[in-house]
């Protein structure tokens, strides 16, 4: 749902000093030349369902299984915590360390159709695979890139669990692995600012059609690409205006294919439709955008529930996206 919420005052900064009437006329003229208001804010409204707070310490990502089980990466606590679909705590797994099943400040996570969890165990330079109950299944040890340690921050896995894309934050690239053989298929991208170049890629999401959306933090954009590593488009740009990012962090795709991008500093989640700004997550009742405290990881389940990890607030907020 889109809704106009107001006009922006073009000459907001102080009163014009040279000819009020003249400036007013110019303003009117300009306004007429445009097809709508100069500044407007469209909202995608959500209904808050519940918050999950469970002694998190800077949680970073969330993934939801088909049965509704919510998994939260509680990175500073070096574990993954599981909750039922109502936010009730179920169990946790993992502890500090480098042994299988242990973590060193994990960050991102994804889940496949079978409920297997794929955790970017950043400090251990690997991706660990767990069963839905948290049992360690396997791991992908990432290789050093030109002597620099890999820094996996997030993963995206297809529903069938055949391919996984791993974001290497420090090396500014992605790895594509075959989950059947755990073999590296391809290194995608490198450092830079043009297409398929990244500056600190962070979180990644895959849509139903296996298009990938990578948050390119310092390039302040999201890059969309195919599963073969071909560039599709940029989403968003630098700035604080709508459709722009200051610190993009999380990305998720809803059932309609709309792309949701969190900005941890501005505290907003913007929605893009085919790469074009569509709206901002907002409160339908108040007609205001929804301001989050450092939103990072996002997830949208098949019921169009939006899960937002608020890292500084150390909580996960769950919303129903209104259609």
């Amino acid at each position: 749902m889109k809704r106009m919420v107001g006009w922006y005052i073009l000459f907001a900064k102080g009163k014009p000093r040279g000819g009020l009437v003249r400036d007013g006329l110019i303003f009117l003229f300009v306004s007429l030349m445009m097809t709508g208001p100069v500044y407007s804010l469209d909202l995608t409204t959500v209904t808050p369902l519940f918050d999950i707070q469970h002694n998190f310490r800077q949680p970073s990502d969330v993934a939801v299984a088909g049965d509704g089980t919510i998994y939260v990466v509680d990175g500073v606590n070096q574990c993954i915590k599981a909750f039922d679909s109502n936010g009730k705590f179920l169990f946790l797994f993992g502890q500090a360390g480098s042994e299988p099943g242990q973590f060193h400040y994990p960050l991102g996570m994804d889940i496949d159709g079978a409920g297997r969890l794929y955790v970017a165990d950043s400090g251990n330079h690997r991706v660990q695979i767990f069963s839905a109950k948290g049992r360690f299944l396997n791991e992908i040890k990432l290789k050093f890139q030109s002597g620099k340690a890999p820094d996996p921050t997030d993963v995206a896995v297809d529903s069938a669990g055949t391919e996984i894309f791993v974001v290497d934050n420090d090396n500014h690239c992605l790895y594509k692995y075959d989950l059947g053989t755990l073999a590296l298929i391809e290194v995608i991208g490198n450092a830079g600012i043009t297409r398929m170049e990244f500056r600190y890629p962070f979180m990644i999401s895959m849509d139903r059609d296996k298009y990938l959306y990578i948050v390119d933090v310092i390039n302040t954009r999201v890059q969309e690409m195919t599963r073969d590593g071909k560039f599709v488009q940029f989403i968003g740009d630098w700035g604080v205006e709508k459709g722009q990012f200051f610190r993009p962090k999380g990305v998720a795709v809803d059932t309609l294919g709309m792309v949701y991008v969190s900005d941890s500093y501005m505290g907003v989640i913007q929605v893009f439709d085919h790469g074009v700004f569509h709206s901002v997550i907002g409160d339908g009742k108040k007609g205001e955008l929804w301001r989050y405290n450092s939103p990072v990881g996002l997830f949208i389940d098949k019921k169009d529930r939006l899960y937002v990890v608020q890292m500084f607030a150390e909580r996960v907020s769950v919303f129903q996206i209104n259609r």
Partner: protein
Amino acid sequence: MHFHLIAWLAEQVPDSLSQSHEAVEGGTDTFFQAGETRKMVVFLGEQLGMKQSSFFLSRVLLFLLLLSPQIALAEVTAPSNPSSAKECALCHYRWIDTFFLYGRGSDLVPYQAEKVVAEAEICHSCHDGSVADSRARVYNDQHHPINKPPPEGMEIPEIFPLDKNGFMQCATCHTAHGVPSEMGMDKTIFVRSSNDDSGMCRQCHKDKDGGSDKGNHPIDSTKIKFSDEFRELGAIEGGRKNQVICESCHRVHGAANDKFLIDSAQGGGQLCLDCHRDKEAMVATVHDLRISSPNSTNLKGKTPAQSGICGVCHLVHGASEVMLWGRKMPEKSTGYKAMDLCVSCHQDGGLAKNKILAKYSHPYNVSISDKGMDPKLPVFNVEGRRVAPEQGILSCPTCHDPHQGRKVLPGGVVAAGDKFLRLTNKPAPELCRQCHLAESRVELTDHDLLAAGSKSLNNQGQSPAESGPCGVCHLIHMAEEKSLWAIDSKNRSRQPAEAVCLACHNSEGTAGTKVLGKRSHPVDVDPKRLGLKTTLPLYDKKGKKGETGMVTCLTCHNPHQWDPTKERVEHFAGLEGDGKNSFLRLQSASAPILCANCHSEQSYVTMTDHDMNILAPDSQNFLGQTPSQSGVCGACHLVHNGENRVRLWARKLGAGNGVMDKMCKSCHNKNDIGSKKVPTVDSHPEGMLITNVGRNVKGESNYFPLFQERTGKQVTVGDISCASCHDVHRWDPKVSRAGTGENMEGRATNSFLRMQTYKLMCIDCHGLDALFRFKYYHNSKQRGPVMN
């Protein structure tokens, strides 16, 4: 056309200004969205000299630009170079054009007028793992404070900027632009000043520097080795090996503990124990005030649970100057601060009021060095600082280590332990040994009642197992008398230096099989009065040892050492001794060193024909000892438990009228070892009332003693006996030394004759007929056989 106008305008922008504004590059690939266009117009307007009050032209430019759909709907393409303005505004949020150029907010965020670049949220927006992962190190609960003013009174150097409120922020210490700490780019740091050896910390925290003189834990010390575990916790050493710096204990970011310590100092004080591992034995002892006094508080008002086991007594910062003491000192100082620390609890009304110094104790506040002792124990000066042995005095912590304690078992039961002694005193007296090395040789001897298996108790009711070898006889604290004897002082009939021996050496005592008989070497006599010189210890009536005084048991015996020649303990309790050992202060066998110390002239008997070691090595005295066991003296004299009172004669008396002659004839008879030296005639006419006045002074050359027949005591009127003419201990009166070991035939000038005999030999009484008389009395051919 419009695009060309903009391009032309863009070219007019001075390079110097382009650094602070977003300059869009890319030629025909560059496009401006609506917002970008507005920014550009305002920006260009500024560069063309327009004042903010004359925005008219800028608005016209805006209008013109908006007319170009070609520009507004251009495809999004990637820039080929990063935007310098963006690179700055990535942190300098306020510099984003929306705020900085247009002076407004956006649909998404409000206008940002204030500088926020230094605020934690900006830093965290990258350091949350999305660029760098500082989640644990920086953004946990324990870190250097931000959003707060510095503590009152703290001077913050100008290079560390505070925010507009005077609060500390990330940027107070950090700068994203890098500061070269030394020559070379590789030495660039992201703090505002070099923090080598915690140099940056010290610029603000001056009150934490200065070491113990300032009541702070020493910094820069390298005395204690950093353990591997300590390093794993994140402890950082300075430029020198094991150099303590601020970051050895503190981690400004990411510490898991209060005061951003790398390990907890509360509870068990693990942080302190990471280095001071020798203090670990204090945990769960009575000095662990969490157990013994959980409600007590230190100088900062913290309970043991709050301060930690170490913080109860020591403050790492803000302590007193002595041992970083963190408790209230006693109102009345002992004058010695090292002692005051202990007394602060061990005093009336103190936490340890049941363990105070009372009655008599081992000397303290005395110089050990002055006594010639060199223990491996700490000594302290008046200020309580540990100093070199020759500079310090013995104090409580010389012997006690308050960190080395007894274990408190579950239920509060205190297990038998070592009373916080630095070294154990049982079964081996290791602590006492440090100063009293010679005395510690009592270990494993018959006098080590722990080894000897005695069940006796000292006067504090302690068994040897409880008191240790030394504590059987000596008390360290709470003694009833100054001498610190551990024996019961009541009902004591003998002076202390004897009584302490007799406490065991009596028929009912622990040493009941080693009881003194009636016939023993005299005690309680002053050697000086007898004309004897000795280096052996003498004792006064109070048992005080000295160079003057009386002979006691301890004059000849050293109860601490079984064998005077062996410094190592080789004897185990239960052996029968002889003249070589038996706790004698000096050996009496085979050489009569001990006896000679008083009876020097008598020791000349050694290696003469009267030395039984030579004459009759297989002979035995009353105790069945051979000369090699008893010693040369012991062959004829029994110091203890002999059968004869006179001269403590150790052999069977021979025939004769007087005891003096009988002693000689013990051997000098036809049936004994002196059978070859039996005078045919050996009697001087009796009843002659011979007087020796003038010749009765021992040591004089005319010494000519007469002896009372029964007692052998010297008299001035009596009969001549063998010993009147013979000095049985000296072969040649002119030679003041022992014999040569050769069996020589004597002459009238030696033959154990006295000087008197040599010089005057009867002449002074008998004139020129002396020879005739001698022969008459000693030559059977002249007189006839001697009647035995």
